[in-house]
């Protein structure tokens, strides 16, 4: 377990800012305690200082996970956000997409969101913008990348993909073994 280096922190922040913009400040600088990011076996964890002090006394080989896993670094040092970060992305998301009840299940099975399943989308969403996907009852289902900007979404045909799937809460069941 070690703190992130400058370059790694930059990568993580840039990735997070694609979804939550400047609200990362609220994650870094919290009024209710000191929270920090730590790297353990290529996975980035977000945890409080209190927890960090306790976790520091666990041997490296025996430590499985700590705090909340935000994602992992791949072999070529690219950062991949995982579904376990949704709890921290959803409240601060800048661009949101609401999915109709009929295609909720499709999204939860790992498919992309089609125009026919699109309920609402935040105005001014740019193309390839990171978005958080909600159900019509405002329950966060996952996150993805907008395949079309809001403008284009209006004009495109119903079978076109509007949101690329990146992670959904169904992964908790599907990838139960590999999630930390």
């Amino acid at each position: 377990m070690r703190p992130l280096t400058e370059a790694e922190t930059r990568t993580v922040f840039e990735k997070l800012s694609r979804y939550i913009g400047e609200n990362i400040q609220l994650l870094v600088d919290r009024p209710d305690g000191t929270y920090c990011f730590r790297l353990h076996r290529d996975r980035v964890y977000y945890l409080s200082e209190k927890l960090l002090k306790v976790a520091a006394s666990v041997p490296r080989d025996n430590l499985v996970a700590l705090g909340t896993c935000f994602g992992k670094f791949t072999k070529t040092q690219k950062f991949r956000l995982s579904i376990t970060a949704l709890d921290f992305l959803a409240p601060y998301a800048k661009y949101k997409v609401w999915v109709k009840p009929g295609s909720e299940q499709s999204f939860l099975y790992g498919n992309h969101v089609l125009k026919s399943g699109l309920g609402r989308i935040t105005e001014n969403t740019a193309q390839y913008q990171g978005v958080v996907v909600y159900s019509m009852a405002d329950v966060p289902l996952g996150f993805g990348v907008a395949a079309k900007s809001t403008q284009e979404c209006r004009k495109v045909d119903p079978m076109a993909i509007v949101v690329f799937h990146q992670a959904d809460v169904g992964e908790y069941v599907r990838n139960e073994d590999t999630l930390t």
Partner: protein
Amino acid sequence: MAAVRVEEVLAAAEEQEAEKRRSVVVEKELELEFDLGNLLALDRNPPPAAALRGAGPRREALLRALARDNTQLLVAQLWELPAERAGGAGGPLVARLPEPTFRLPREKPAPRPRPPTRWEQFARLKGIRRRKKTSLVWDEQAKEWRRRWGYKRAGGDPARAWLAEVPENADPEEDQFARLRREKRERVARNEFNRLRNLARAHRAGTAVPAAPLHPTGHQSREELSHVSRVARVSTASLGRFQPRLPKESAEPPSRSGGKKRRFEPLLGNLAAERSRQLEMLRDINSKKPVLDITRAVNKQMRQEEAEAAAAKGKKKQSQRGKRGRRQ
């Protein structure tokens, strides 16, 4: 009773003071010779020979007393030097030492002369002596003084020679330019070979051969020079920590493992500092993002146009409906 005690105390105090004063003053038959530049004091007084004979605690005590006395005299001399306060009023008292006068003997043995090279032997045999050459040569073509070799030499750059005469006894099919290039390569290789052979000969003869990296030949590659500069930077008493450096050089001296071992921040280091660093980085990232987003502006424009078009269409429909109604 009390009075006697006080007298005793006073007498003891006087004894102590006399003792102190006695220890500062040293009596010697012959004056010592001082070389303050080297912090050297030479004592030519003959020591009491009888006491020095034979090892033992008495000899030790005598030597120690001798050393203490001489050191006392040296320190007294140092205090006589003109002193000033370094670094302003509160700094330490610093004395400037005079130039050293005592010639210290060599630390290492004198180097042996290196054996003469093959050319030197030949030249000595034939009686050839070095003729001093001028550094500049008159170039008839350019009508100015040019250097003998190197950049902008007299006679033009040989690499850009556009004419190569075919000598009489040469094969007419042969490529002259290739021949010139090949011969130059051979000459360079032969020179290099001979230089290395001379170095090897000097090394075998046991003379001090200057270490190749520190012996500049003008042919050193960039890697060699950077290696040498790295070594030179770290070869100081503080291992390169306070060396003046170039504007873009890093502050930490080069690591011994050549940058292979990574160093990380401590796990539970200063969390407040970490947080402030991260906030700085966030500010930096946010400042890099463009304020005017082209796509957003374009989208906004398109939206406006669409709204206008929809409004116009709506009006047209209404007017048409009205017309139809009236007709009917």
